[in-house]
């Protein structure tokens, strides 16, 4: 399976999905003008990857977002829905990172956890 790399920009997150080294990461800010366009390649990739025959038995997807707008929030829901409805949904764990003071980010993660039948883990960012 090919990797998916998208560099971060001022208003879009870094996407680093690399099956070879088993790293799956979304990191940064997500507030593009057109969230659908930005996330389309991610959906395309996920549709293939999570439906493949040789899906890894454990897939940890790291959500290290420090901000996303409502338009992105819907696209994240779409991505999680693709995972949830795929045959490999039980292989997946979402690791949801948030800053301790950022209760809104924790709430957003809880919301997806509640609405999606996927395993979630919540991790407080360590002060660096």
């Amino acid at each position: 399976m090919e990797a998916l790399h998208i560099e971060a920009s001022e208003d879009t997150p870094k996407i680093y999905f690399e099956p070879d080294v088993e790293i799956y990461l979304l990191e940064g800010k997500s507030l593009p003008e057109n969230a659908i366009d930005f996330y389309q390649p991610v959906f395309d990739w996920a549709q293939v990857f999570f439906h493949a025959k040789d899906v890894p038995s454990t897939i940890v997807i790291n959500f290290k977002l420090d901000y996303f707008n409502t338009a992105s929030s819907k696209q994240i829901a779409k991505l999680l829905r693709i995972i949830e409805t795929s045959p490999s949904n039980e292989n997946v764990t979402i690791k949801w990172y948030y800053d301790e003071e950022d209760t809104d980010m924790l709430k957003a993660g809880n919301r997806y956890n509640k609405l999606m039948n996927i395993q979630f883990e919540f991790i407080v960012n360590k002060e660096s």
Partner: protein
Amino acid sequence: MNQGLLDKEKLGFIYKLFKAMQKNNLNYIYRGIFTTNITDNILALAESNLVQKEDPRALRRKVYNVMVEGLQNVTKHQADLETDLENKFGVFVLKKEHYKYFITTGNLIENQDIEKLTGQINQVNGMDKVELKAYHREVLLHGKMSNKGGAGLGLIDMARKSGNKLLYAFEKVDEKFSYFYLHTEIPSKGIEKSTLDPKNPNILKYISALHKMLNQENVLIIFNSYFNQESLMNLLSIIEKQMLENIQQKKRIYNTMVEMFQNIIQHGDDYKETEEGKAGLFYISETDNEFLLNTGNYILNSKIERLTKKLNYVNGMNYKELDEFYDTRLLDFEIDTSKEAGLGIIDIRLKTDGVLEYSFLNIDDKYSFYTLRAKISKN
């Protein structure tokens, strides 16, 4: 039931501001602490949005250079003032009117510096282009440098680069401090001679009235220009660099700004067609207990009914209902276009305090002026 309806007085302020700015084409005001970071972002914002692309490159460069000098002037002088004065914030104003750019700065200085500053400005104003150039070189090479970084080198530069006189005023605050206003204009297109009369009382009056209004309403930032993603990103950088102790508050201001701004980008209607984005007004003000985020933009009259229903519906919900409504909308993949996710207003309500206040002011048969206000509590 219009529980979110802004009362006439509040609406008056927003619309008055918008009209005043429209009339003058006033574009950008920042009032607060000036740091190097904030200054950099103001410059970036000006470069990408406020200084219009159709202007000749030479003019844009000039405006930029004068802004740099003006902003540095404020940054340099505010740092060493130790005062508990409530209104110790500096102010920066950039506006465009017809073919002229106006740059105004205002900051607190010590009364004991008034005489020296007055002397320096008068000296600079008394020189023509050639004399200024010679004087600039002289100060650069031999001038005795003050501990503030120059014998009025910034002032000389501003005069040289604007090609105009420097207008100034002092307004006494107390026994120790005064506000120092510095104003210059940059003419474009074939206007060679200085046109600014340093003693023009109208401009002075205007500046001082504006500053009073900003202080009164405790306005932190006013942006009146084209709303697009680029201007949003630059404004956000300025907000991010504000020194707010409470991270959550800062995040919520950031969040609300994004949703309000993108709402206008997607749904605002142009009174006049523009390619650069939708014309709109955004400002943040502050009270003892809360931050107020305000937007104003034109919308088609035909949209008012639906928008009013939507706002009233969301305003009528309690937190739990809003939260559930968000869930429903989040998973409603029928509402999913590049323009609409159906979540913006719900999200603003969830992350701000109290109802969203709004109003519509009829402009003509086709358009109204729509204002929206969200409040973020400090407690």
